[in-house]
Structures are given as C-alpha cells and as structure tokens.
C-alpha cells in the first residue's frame, strides 16, 4: 500500500495538492447541486402521489410540514425529542465507555480474544430486538429500558470495529516503537490507539444508526413518550401527517449525529482522510 502510494507521490507536491483541492471543491459543488435536485424531485413525486390517496393513509410533504410546525409550536415535538434524547445519549455514552476498552483488550490480548471474542461477534450478529421483551421485564417501561436497548444495540458495533482496528495496525508501525525502545504503555498510547482511532470512529458512526433503531424499538414497545411514542400514537389515531413529521425529525437527527461524528473524526484524526483516500 505504502509502496504504491510513494510511487505515485507527486514530486512537486505543493502544486499537486492545490490543484487537487480545486478539483475537489468543483466536484463537491456540482455534487451538492445534484443532491438538492434529487430531494426536490422526490418531494414533488411524494406531494403529487399523496394527494391521490385517502388522507388517513398518507400525507403529502406540505401537510407533514404544517403538522411539524404545529407540533413544534405547541411544544409536543421538543418534549418528545428531549424524552428520546436523554436515554439515547446515556445509552450511547455507556456503549462507548464499554465498547472501546473491550475492543482494545480483545484486539490486543489473545487470551481476552479467546475468552470473550465470541461474545462480541455473537452480540453483533444477533438481532438485539429479540431481547426487548426480556429487557422490559428487567428494566420496566421507562428511561432504563430505553437506555439498555440503545446500549446493547450500539456497544457491539463499537467493540467489533475497535477490535478490527487493533488487528489491522500494521506490524511494522508497532515495530517502529520497538526499534526505538518505546515501552509497552508508550507503544499502546503513542502508536496503537492513534492507529485505531479511524476504526473507532467507524464504529461510532455505525453505532449511531444502531442506537437510533434501539431507541425507536424501545419506544414502540413501551409506547411511552419520545419520538417513537409519537409515531405509534399518530399511527393508531390515523394521523399520518403527525407520524411522518416525527419520522422526518428522526431522520434529520440521525443524519445530523452521523455528520457530527464525521466532524469529530476530522478534528481528532485529520490525517486519516488523506491516507484512506476518502477525501478525494
């Protein structure tokens, strides 16, 4: 990989870097326009199609937007978001606090891998939704069950990506530490962990998607508050405009959180995009 990169490495790298940047900007500007066009076309199709259907079954974007404004101004939507956000954040943070160290340990020590590696794989592969009824028995119908669902949905994705990252740290990179007589803790902190950060961030990004599923599932089952609760209530009372409004909010929140993770990644690991070439 590195050999190839070096063969293609520019001689006058300043010039090439600049021209690459200009090209990237031009391309991303055009891409953004295409994306915006796609959104508009979809909204138009939805609007036209939904107007043909019985209003208790579907709602056009205009009606959804009106419902959304109403739900925001009467305070029901902010309250639902707040109710979902709290267990979401606590569960997600717990998953980070547990998942990253577990991934690091399983990846770094063969004994730990043999002991609990299978559990991480099983947890990642298994649909955690199956555990919801049990979780309701254990944690009741409130905050605790939502937090537990978010946590169990997310923790395995974070752990398995961290584990994978540790295993993919190049042997030669660790050898740099050995060659310059760095101690084991130095190698862990100065070489292994920075090398694994991009994989951890991938885990966090995938984790957002899992966590959103977790909170919605928990709220569907318990039907108590939160955005999931709003969706269920609106569905039961034949108010598709309110239902879609909640879905849109959910979608926007998930996209925003994923974007936030991307920003954090660029902030703490700015070197990564240029290495993987994803910054093209």
């Amino acid at each position, binding site marked *: 990989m590195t050999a190839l990169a*070096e063969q293609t490495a520019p001689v006058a*790298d300043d010039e090439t*870097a600049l021209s690459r940047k200009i090209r990237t900007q031009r391309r991303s500007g055009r891409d953004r326009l295409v994306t915006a066009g796609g959104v508009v076309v979809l909204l138009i199709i939805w609007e036209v199609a939904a107007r043909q259907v019985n209003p208790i079954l579907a709602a056009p974007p205009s009606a959804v937007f009106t419902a959304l404004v109403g739900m925001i101004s009467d305070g029901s939507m902010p309250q639902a978001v707040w109710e979902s956000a709290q267990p979401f954040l606590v569960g997600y943070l717990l998953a980070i606090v547990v998942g990253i160290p577990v991934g690091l340990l399983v990846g770094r020590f063969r004994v730990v891998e043999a002991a609990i590696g299978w559990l991480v794989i099983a947890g990642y592969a298994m649909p955690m939704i199956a555990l919801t009824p049990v979780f309701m028995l254990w944690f009741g119908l409130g905050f605790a069950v939502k937090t537990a669902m978010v946590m169990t949905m997310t923790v395995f994705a974070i752990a398995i990506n961290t584990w994978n990252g540790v295993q993919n740290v190049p042997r030669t*990179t660790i050898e*740099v530490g050995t060659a*310059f*007589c760095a101690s084991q803790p130095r190698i862990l902190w*100065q070489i292994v962990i920075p090398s694994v950060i991009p994989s951890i961030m991938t885990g966090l990004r995938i984790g957002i998607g899992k966590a959103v599923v977790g909170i919605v599932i928990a709220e569907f089952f318990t039907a108590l508050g939160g955005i999931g609760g709003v969706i269920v209530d609106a569905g039961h009372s034949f108010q598709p405009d309110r239902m879609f409004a909640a879905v849109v909010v959910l979608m926007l929140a998930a996209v925003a959180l994923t974007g936030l993770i991307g920003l954090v990644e660029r902030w703490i690991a700015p070197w990564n995009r240029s290495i993987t070439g994803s910054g093209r």
Partner: protein
Amino acid sequence: MTTTAPGHSAADARPADLAVEVRQVSKVFGDDRGHRVQALKDVSFQVRRSEIVALTGRSGCGKTTLLRIIMGLEHPSSGTVVVDGDVVHGPGLNRGIVFQNAELLPWRTALGNVEFGLEARGVPKEERRAAAEGAIELVGLGHAAHRRPHELSGGMRQRVGIARALAIDPAVLLMDEPFSALDAQTRENMQGELLEIHARTGKTIIFVSHDIDESVLLADRVVTLVPDPGRVHAELDTAFGRGGSLDDRRTSAEFARRRHELLQLVHGRQIQPQEDGKSA
C-alpha cells in the same frame, strides 16, 4: 585482493575501531507444521567505524533477517552480535533504524516523528526539540518540519525516517532497502544525500539492498550472501574514487568492474576476470 574470507578484511582492525561485529550468527525459523528453515548459517563479518557496508544477495539469502538481528528485532538462534562493544539482546539506542517505507506515524508532523525516538529515551523537551530540529536540518527538510507525512513526497518521507534515526545519535545507522520504494530520480538524489550525511556525521552505516549498482555506488565494502542456507559468500572492496562526485563514481571504469564482479558474487560464483582486464 577484493574477495576475502568472511570477516578477514576487518580482522586486522583493533577492537576499538570496530562498530559492529557479527559472530557465527545462525537463525532457524520453525513454521506452523514444525518444518525448520535455516535462514542463516554461521554468518560472521565485521564493520569498522565510519564504514559503509552493504549487505546484498538474491531474495531468500537472509539479508533482511541478518539486518533485523543486528537491529535486535529478531534473536539469533546461535551466535552473537556486538555493536559498539555491547552484545545485542534487543533493540537499542546505539542503533538508528531506517525502515524500507519510512514507517512514519501519520498523526505526527515531520518534526514530531523525528522526536519519537528521543521521547522514548526520556530526553527533556527543550533538548529533544533542538536535537530533532538539528536532525531535520541535516536531511534538508527544515522548511517542511511541520508538515504531516501525507503532505510529503516519498523521498521527503524517507528523509524524515533518516532524520529520526540520526536524532538519537546512534553509533550505527541500519537501513533496510531504504530507497527501493522510491522512483529512479528520487533514489539517485537520496543516494547522494546519504553520502553527504555520511561525510558530515561520520556515522557507520549498514544497509541492505538487492540493487547491485546501489551497493557498489554507496558502500565501502559489500558483503554478499547466498541462500539455502543464508551464508556469507564473499566480501568485495568497493572503496574506490572517494571524494569525487557520485556521477564521477558511477561513470568510472572502476565502477563497471566492481559491478561486474559483484554480479558474479551475488550469483554464488567466484570472480571471473573480464576479458579486457584482470580482477584487481
């Protein structure tokens, strides 16, 4: 005489003049199925202070394994390596290691990478910074000290690798095919650069190369190895035309003759005189 018995050419040197002594080193690798492969058998040679020695041979002759044993990254099955009067038991700061693909830490700047070895050594911050800046100036990268590896060309990255090894002020510089990943033009520049660094610092240098021209051009002496099992075949004195430019050296008749001789040695033959001349 150009070919000598292994170790002979330096045998008359007093011990104080010796930078590296490889004594009867053998290395046996065992694979998963219990097969044992003899990578090196009774390898002995000596390197005087300030000498540049190339280890060369066809692939599978164990040249890289031998260098890794001198580095301390592999342990010999039998025999010893003495560097600067100390028996090698593992990596040590009396040896500066330059890796084939530079192996810089992508999250550190050029200067930060050069500082890495000094940090492991526990050099105080001020002193560390000064030593790193000195080393990076020495390789002609003062202007790029604060760039990250992905912003550097392949040649610049390898300069940082050399600076990192020099910064710890080692007795010996060990280089594993240091220029093999570079394009031809950059490689030529780097070869000249290395000789300049050698002229300025007087460091003992041992490098592995499969490139016949590079070995003859850069080294004072070439140790050739042959495979199955890896052993020293012969040593060739290549200390001709020192002081002239690299281009003069490259175009000299002496270069052509040594090159021809080395080619024979690498293929496990003895030197046959060329038709128009005699083996010097």
